[in-house]
């Protein structure tokens, strides 16, 4: 490990943190925080739910960018796919489910089925779109995914099949569940928050498993050098295709949650400017880290909220993120997570060696933080 020993009290404090505060305890603390948040102000619950959804969106996107080196400008397609799948099922099949399972639990059943339909729709689209897209690399991959996204956008607003309700989008009404005289609204902030936490944490865990599997290890190698990977017998295109599908599915789940949170599935979700949100969050957070997109989404939403507190600045929040994006790419590609790890090294001396979850980006000239343990470390706030 290359980090220098800072010695003295600070060092001791650092090792105390390392010894006493295990991952499990941090996990417990995080879970407690999540529960406490449910009793906070309504707007804060909403904002945090929003953050979780965007975090999952960016995490799904980065599976492709950070782990195989393909920059998609069309992941809005899958975000919208999940949203529209849910919205169409709720609109068209809600009454059918009420007949089958009874009106009491029908809204919940419809929501779950709608979510699964959204996911299935996304996978069905991602299989051919991914198969075609991974034939290309670099700029050309960015362009073809952008084009696919915009095809989706065009079809949704022109609505040739009469399914998507054009530019207005589809209203998403989640309804109320009545069981044994108790009734609760699925869309109520606390309820929806709890649901989102569970789904997002499960999805993040799933992604984490994939990233640390033999498959994920091969992906990291592809990110580093595709031709070297091929020379070792790895079918690079096939791997990228598989990653594309998983990445789209994760984004699709985020899209389902987005539709429920916003109460609408709107065509804007497919637009390239929505796909760009995942790019911004990921790059700011640090594409080289598993937790980069999550931290990036946190920064994106909370700084935006912070800016919105000042009405004169509020109209120009994009300016700030434009400048931040440029600054990060030019001077500190490790992003916010890289910065935090660097800070931790400075404060606590030698970093603890962690798992090996982070892909690393070969961007020459980009600032990289200290030791290898750090670089591959995953201890961002998963929660």
């Amino acid at each position, binding site marked *: 490990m290359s980090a220098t020993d800072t010695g003295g009290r600070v060092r001791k404090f650092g090792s105390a943190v390392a010894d006493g505060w295990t991952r499990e305890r941090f996990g417990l603390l995080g879970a407690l925080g999540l529960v406490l948040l449910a009793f906070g102000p309504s707007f804060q619950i909403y904002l945090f739910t929003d953050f979780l959804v965007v975090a999952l969106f960016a995490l799904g996107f980065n599976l492709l960018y950070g782990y195989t080196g393909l920059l998609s400008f069309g992941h809005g397609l899958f975000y919208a796919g999940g949203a529209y799948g849910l919205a169409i099922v709720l609109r068209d099949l809600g009454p059918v489910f009420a007949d089958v399972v009874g009106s009491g639990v029908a809204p919940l059943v419809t929501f779950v089925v709608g979510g699964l339909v959204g996911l299935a729709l996304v996978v069905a689209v991602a299989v051919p779109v991914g198969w075609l897209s991974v034939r290309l690399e*670099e*700029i050309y991959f960015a*362009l073809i995914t952008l084009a696919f996204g915009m095809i989706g956008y065009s079809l949704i607003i022109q609505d040739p099949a009469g399914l998507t309700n054009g530019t207005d989008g589809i209203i998403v009404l989640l309804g109320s569940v009545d069981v044994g005289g108790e009734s609760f609204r699925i869309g109520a902030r606390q309820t929806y928050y709890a649901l989102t936490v569970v789904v997002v944490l499960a999805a993040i865990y799933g992604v984490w498993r994939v990233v640390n599997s033999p498959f994920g290890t091969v992906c990291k190698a592809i990110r580093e050098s595709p031709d070297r990977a091929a020379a070792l017998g790895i079918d690079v295109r096939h791997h990228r295709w598989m990653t594309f599908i998983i990445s789209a599915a994760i984004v699709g789940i985020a899209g389902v949650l987005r539709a429920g949170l916003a109460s609408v599935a709107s065509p804007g979700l497919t637009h390239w400017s929505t796909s760009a949100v995942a790019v911004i969050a990921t790059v700011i957070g640090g594409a080289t880290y598993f937790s980069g997109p999550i931290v990036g989404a946190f920064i994106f939403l909370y700084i935006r909220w912070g800016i919105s507190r000042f009405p004169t600045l509020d109209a*120009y929040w994009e300016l700030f*993120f434009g400048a931040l*994006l440029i600054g990060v790419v*030019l001077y500190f590609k490790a992003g916010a997570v890289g910065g935090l790890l660097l800070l931790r090294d400075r404060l606590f001396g030698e970093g603890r060696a962690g798992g090996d979850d982070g892909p690393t980006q*070969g*961007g020459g000239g980009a600032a990289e933080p200290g030791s290898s343990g750090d670089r591959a470390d995953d201890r961002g706030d998963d929660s």
Partner: protein
Amino acid sequence: MSLSSLVPLIGVSDVVVGLSLGSRLFLIAVGLSLIFGVLGVLNFAHGGLYMLGAYVTLAVVTGVIDNFWIAALAGALAVGVVGAAIEFAAIRPLYDRIDADLDQLIVTFGFVLIIHETVRFVWGSGSYSVDPPALFDFSVSLGGSTFGAYRLVVIGLAVAVLAGLWLFITRTYFGSLVRGTSSDREMASMLGVDVPRLYTAVFFLGSVLAGLGGALSAPLQSTSPALGDQVIIDAFIVVVIGGLGSMTGAFVGAMLIGMMQSLGPQFISAGSIAIPFLAMVIVLLFRPEGLFGGIGE
């Protein structure tokens, strides 16, 4: 009733509109294609620069001198300076990175946001229109329909820009440096070409073209902060179909898309706006070098 009502599918005015739409698209896309052809940079902010050209022209016409041509020139040069500054400050440091292409795309996307917000800050969110130069501010009747004479002028201007650029690239010393550097950067560098300076110069030229496009198209469109985001996608379609880096490719691609936009809706109603994107996908998959490859061709 004239002949065109008997042949409802294609009227003369549709063709003129198609050609003028295509001309505008060419003016948007040609600088993007030039920059990609020489530097290998896909400039996401190109649409923003185009928009900036329209705004500067507007500002000069209304605030400084009421002469459209001078204003357009001022717009083009101002945008050229902004473009050169962007290249110098934010794109040049990235050429040697392994991920240069994607990093440059992301950085220029950052400038999309910055230009958008700056324009909103200076000119507000409303939309403006610019009058065509007085000389051409009249209507022409052709084949039973009427359109502004300036549409014809734009078609002529687009052809003039193509011809001028072609002469510049094939007949001047600077043009030969550009061609040499675009085909083999390292060789050009070894032969004593100051490649970084040449890159900045080409980025300046490409940005001037963006600004000029925005300025000349200003009378045909309403200028608002959303303009940049709209046109960059059109520009991507055009340069991909024509061939990234090709001038004539950009011209033919632009005319194809222009005619498609003008005539297409009469043939296909459902899903028609998806067609250019579909064409883009097909070209990328089967002919990634575009229908017309290579710079200066």
